[in-house]
């Protein structure tokens, strides 16, 4: 993850300044894939001509309905709040535990079994247990998200801490950097790649488990709506909810998380697509 030896030439600057045509081209393969997928699906639906395999227009109509009657934003808001709270909890705990593990041998040995155990327990198990223990309380989804994403986060941050250059810490010590400066200017930037990788991983785990929790034990949220659609055998609605959810996740991932990461790691200049 170190890019200290990456030396950008004039090319990097040129790419950064290059206007839209290139950028549009960059998305072309992805768009092509989606168009082909939709076409293939439509072909299959037409050939099968079966009520449980709705065509593309039916799915799109369903999506438009869900969005335009306002239920999507409401339900999405509820789900995002649950994921957000659970993820924030996991993140804070993981930063503390992960750094402790990286800096202290006892802490590492102490938390290692918890991390390994946590990594192997399926999100489904956490979802079931939390539904049983906490019922329809807000604690339920928050705990399930936190429990299922924290181990992966801890591992990421622990490994990031280990990779912080001890030479730089020595330098900071000799030049008497204050604790605050050392944290802000050395630790955080050095940990940034692992923090982002951890955030990405933790969020994706959180999304998966929240839908399960909402299917089993909640009376609101995207998972609950999915379950309703499923019970009514409305396949178009199941697909519509899933697609909308996936779009929002993609926006979060590519629009927000990646944009933030690019800003933070501008100095790297290594172009990541």
């Amino acid at each position: 993850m170190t890019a200290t030896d990456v030396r950008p030439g004039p090319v990097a600057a040129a790419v950064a300044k290059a206007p839209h045509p290139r950028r549009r081209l960059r998305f072309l393969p992805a768009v092509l894939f989606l168009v082909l997928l939709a076409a293939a699906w439509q072909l299959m639906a037409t050939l099968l001509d079966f009520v449980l395999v709705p065509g593309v227009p039916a799915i799109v109509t369903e999506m438009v309905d869900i969005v335009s009657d306002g239920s999507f934003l409401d339900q999405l808001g509820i789900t995002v709040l649950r994921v957000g709270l659970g993820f924030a909890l996991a993140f804070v705990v993981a930063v503390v535990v992960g750094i402790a593990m990286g800096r202290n041998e006892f802490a590492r040995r102490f938390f290692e079994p918890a991390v390994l155990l946590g990594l192997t327990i399926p999100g489904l198990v956490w979802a079931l247990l939390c539904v049983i223990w906490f019922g329809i309380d807000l604690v339920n989804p928050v705990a399930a998200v936190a429990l299922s994403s924290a181990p992966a986060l801890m591992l990421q941050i622990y490994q990031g801490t280990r990779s912080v250059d001890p030479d730089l810490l020595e330098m900071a010590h000799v030049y008497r950097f204050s604790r605050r400066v050392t944290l802000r200017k050395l630790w955080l930037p050095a940990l940034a790649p692992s923090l982002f990788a951890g955030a990405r991983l933790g969020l994706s785990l959180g999304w998966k488990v929240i839908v399960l929790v909402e299917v089993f034990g909640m009376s609101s949220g995207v998972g609950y709506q999915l379950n309703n659609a499923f019970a009514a055998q409305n396949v178009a609605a199941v697909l519509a909810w899933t697609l909308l959810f996936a779009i929002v996740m993609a926006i979060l991932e590519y629009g927000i998380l990646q944009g933030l990461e690019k800003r933070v790691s501008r100095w790297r200049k290594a172009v990541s697509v």
Partner: protein
Amino acid sequence: MRLEGIGKTFVDARSGTPQQVLADFSLTVEPGELVAVVGASGTGKTTLLHVVAGLVQPDTGTVETGDPRLGIVFQQPRLLDWLSVRENITLACHDGAKADEVLAAVGLTEYAGSYPTVLSGGQRQRVAVARAFAVEPDLLLLDEPFSALDELTARKLRLLLQDLWMQRPRTGLLVTHNPLEAALLADRVIVLAGRPARIAAEYRVDRERPRSAEDPHLFELHSQIVAAL
């Protein structure tokens, strides 16, 4: 700065065998003096410097430095790659004007706003030198500051170091494996050899600054140091 009876033993992480790098080692550097420590690699020069800097705790002995403001140039530049060159310096010296001044002195004014990653190795090491001088150190520690550079760049930086030193003489310890560098820059050269390391030879360099690398007197001294190594 005084070292008195310093002892340091490292235990090899793999084999578990202890090796005594320093034993009962003493050295005094007078105020205003620049002392060069010359020795083959692995003799314990870096260890010695780190003891002085407080980065390594000696097993025995005392270090009297009077808690000086330290300026240090490591073998590698050790810059924060995510901060601009200028900010790398201001973080150490808390003084933007000072940072600009030292950057001008090392000829890197135009790179003040750049990230260190766009600089060449020699330029990065110049930033490290600038940072060391920016803090107005009472004690300047240099650990083979130019050994990772090509000879041409190293030669330029040695003369630059001499210039900076002449502007503001202070107390300094220069570790190097290059005898000519030691003779060119130092007031006194000590040769370190053996395990545990001891002072095998000691030379005074009574030449006015600025000195030139072509000075025959320095070259002769260089030959003596090589012989002692």
